[in-house]
């Protein structure tokens, strides 16, 4: 609060003392010393400026970073301006953004050793018309995340293509007020993942040829937990058929091959109006977090979940999750498109879980507790309607006014 006040005061003083400050454009062209010239421009930029990266290929050896508020980093198009990190010798990502009100657009980031573009504590960040790609195709040695905003408020990802991430193509973690739209994620382990976050709209995206299309997760032992209020709608989630290539130990390494949408340990998630087909394990899975945790404030169960009005094609014909093949055999055919682990209570608190699974049929595994697949008592019903849930309002990226 005090920092915001100070910033506003400084801005007002600057505006009154020097009149309007002209926004500058700092142009960076390909060629020798591109690393130093590009990084210098990112250091020299002042609020309101644009760092314009010309068309061409930039062979970079170290991570780039931006720590100035209100800067736009723009290329000449996601196929024209290519930042290649094939020869990267250090840093955990290609481009790291740690300031507020930054836009990065119209460029490509290729072959980073770690994550592609990361922003941390960067409010009002916008990722627009980008390509982040590991050009060798899906490999365990690819970086984890393509675009990776974390610990931020008001995040927009629009028109981004990510290929080859060994965790999630688009990953938004521990953030609030998020829109992911008009983007395409393919050949990643997870296409799009919203984790430990509140108020996210994920819509009009294509998630295809990943291991899993769209994930909404909540994990324990993190500074921000209790993810809730996410809407996943009007996406095409099709043919997610790339075998899981995530390094073991990461939570997505446990995601079954061919999963359309997976909701894990989250609250008030609404999945509707999507086209979901060609996912061999399941169209939509609702599962508990199954690993041990010791944080009493963490809730490992998906609850207040709505799945409705999706166009469900062929899914679940060869399920790869534990117990799936046996259940499919018992049912004598493909699994129903919706699979729920059916855990109703955890930590001794009964009947806290309610769902509205209107797209049927629904396979309910009726597990007595998270991950207790051996005790499954599967049932199939046309739907599971425990209650109705008000849909979260559309996410607004307008900063709150005091």
């Amino acid at each position: 609060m005090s920092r915001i006040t100070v910033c506003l005061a400084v801005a007002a003083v600057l505006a009154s003392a020097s009149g309007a400050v002209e926004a500058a454009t700092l142009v960076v062209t390909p060629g020798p010393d591109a690393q130093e010239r590009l990084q210098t421009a990112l250091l020299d930029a002042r609020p309101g400026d644009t760092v314009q990266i010309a068309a061409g290929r930039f062979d970079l050896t170290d991570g780039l970073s931006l720590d100035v508020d209100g800067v736009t980093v723009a290329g000449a198009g996601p196929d024209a301006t290519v930042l290649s990190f094939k020869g990267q010798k250090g840093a955990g990502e290609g481009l790291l953004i740690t300031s507020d009100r930054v836009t990065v657009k119209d460029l490509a980031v290729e072959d980073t050793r770690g994550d592609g573009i990361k922003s941390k504590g960067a409010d009002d960040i916008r990722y627009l018309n980008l390509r982040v790609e590991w050009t060798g195709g899906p490999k365990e040695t690819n970086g984890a995340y393509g675009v990776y905003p974390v610990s931020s408020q008001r995040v927009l990802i629009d028109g981004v293509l990510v290929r080859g991430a060994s965790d999630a193509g688009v990953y938004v973690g521990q953030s609030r007020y998020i829109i992911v739209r008009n983007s395409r994620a393919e050949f990643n382990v997870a296409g799009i993942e919203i984790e430990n976050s509140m108020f996210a709209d994920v819509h009009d995206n294509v998630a295809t040829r990943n291991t899993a299309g769209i994930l909404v997760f909540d994990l324990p032992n993190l500074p921000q937990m209790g993810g809730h209020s996410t809407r996943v709608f009007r996406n095409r989630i099709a043919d997610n058929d790339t075998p899981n290539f995530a390094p073991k130990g990461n939570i997505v390494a446990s995601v079954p091959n061919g999963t359309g949408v997976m909701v894990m340990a989250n609250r008030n998630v609404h999945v509707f109006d999507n086209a979901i087909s060609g996912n061999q394990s399941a169209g939509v899975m609702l599962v508990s977090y199954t690993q041990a945790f010791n944080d009493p404030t963490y809730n490992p169960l998906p609850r207040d979940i709505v799945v409705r009005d999706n166009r469900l094609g062929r899914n679940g014909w060869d399920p790869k999750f534990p117990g799936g093949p046996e259940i499919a055999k018992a049912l004598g055919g493909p699994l129903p498109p919706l699979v729920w682990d059916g855990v109703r209570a955890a930590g001794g608190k009964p009947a806290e879980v309610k769902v509205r699974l209107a797209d049927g049929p629904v396979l309910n595994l009726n597990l007595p507790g998270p991950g207790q697949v051996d005790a499954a008592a599967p049932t199939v019903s046309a739907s599971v309607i425990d209650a109705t849930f008000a849909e979260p309002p559309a996410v607004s990226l307008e900063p709150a006014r005091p």
Partner: protein
Amino acid sequence: MRRGLLPPAILLATLAGLGAAAPQPGVNLDLVLADAPAPRLSDYRLFLDAGADRPNGRVAPYDLVTPLFTDHAEKDRFVFTPHGRRIGYTATGVLDFPAGAVLVKTFAYPADLRRPDHDVRKVETRLLIRKALGWTAQTYVWNAEGTEAVLKRAGARVPVRFTDPGGREVALDYAVPNQNQCKTCHQVEGAVSPIGPKAWNLNHEVAQAGGGRANLLALWSRAGLLEGAPAPEALPRLAAWNDAAQPLEARARAYLDVNCGHCHSPAGSASNSGLFLTADETRPAALGVGKPPVAAGRGSGGLSVAIDPGHPERSILAFRMASGEPGVMMPELGRTLVHEEGVELVQAWISSMPPARRPGD
């Protein structure tokens, strides 16, 4: 490890102004406090010679109980405080440096680490300057002759060769950080901050000129450089990571605090990991015990938890410390080589933990 270049007796003399009989101009305080960084290190007049070996008045050498590992670079540290200003003692966190204070750290490589005072090549000198409104970080890269260091804001790679303590030839692409990377590690709640000069990491005996040893903080207090510090026996003390006489756990925790805790803390760059490695952390899960990775990617090395008690070979923490590969290794900035002694220390600590019971054991 090379200790401070100047004996404390000279330090005391320079601090007291006794060495200022010759009309040497002092440190350029206007430049220190200016908004823009100076183009050359020598512009600040922190040193009396072009090679930055002889500190100016009020520029005092110091070193740390447990330092950060930076590819085996030797580090010479100095602190400058303006005339009439003192450093305020704080029991925890970084000491309270006055405006105009400068922390100076030169990174250098002797041709042979077994002969640390011979054929030393300086690579860079980093400055943390306490401006009126807060700290800024800059670095100056030395020319090959070691006669001039110039401002380098965007980072650089410098080829370095040396012979390591085991007699092996080592060649590396030393990474000079860019200005933002300085801040990636040097930050608390988003503002630039020093890391090393905390009371407990300065609380040790240093050699005095003419023999004998004295407590560094006591020396600083006596010289009028530091105010408010209690007697040495009442000061907190960090374990020395490489002192085998001290308890294993304290040494490992000190090592992790200094090498990892600046990012892996609730106010640091890696806050979102939930892995907190400062020496005051007491929650096992926050320390990594049984904690699955969050955003490790291939940094997990196919392992399931940061620390698997009793099993360093199953612990991501030790795996990432033992890697030199970008995207895997930790810390991700500040080193290209593996610190084998540091890895061994942390492995020994994990080995000493009672193993967790697991299904199938």
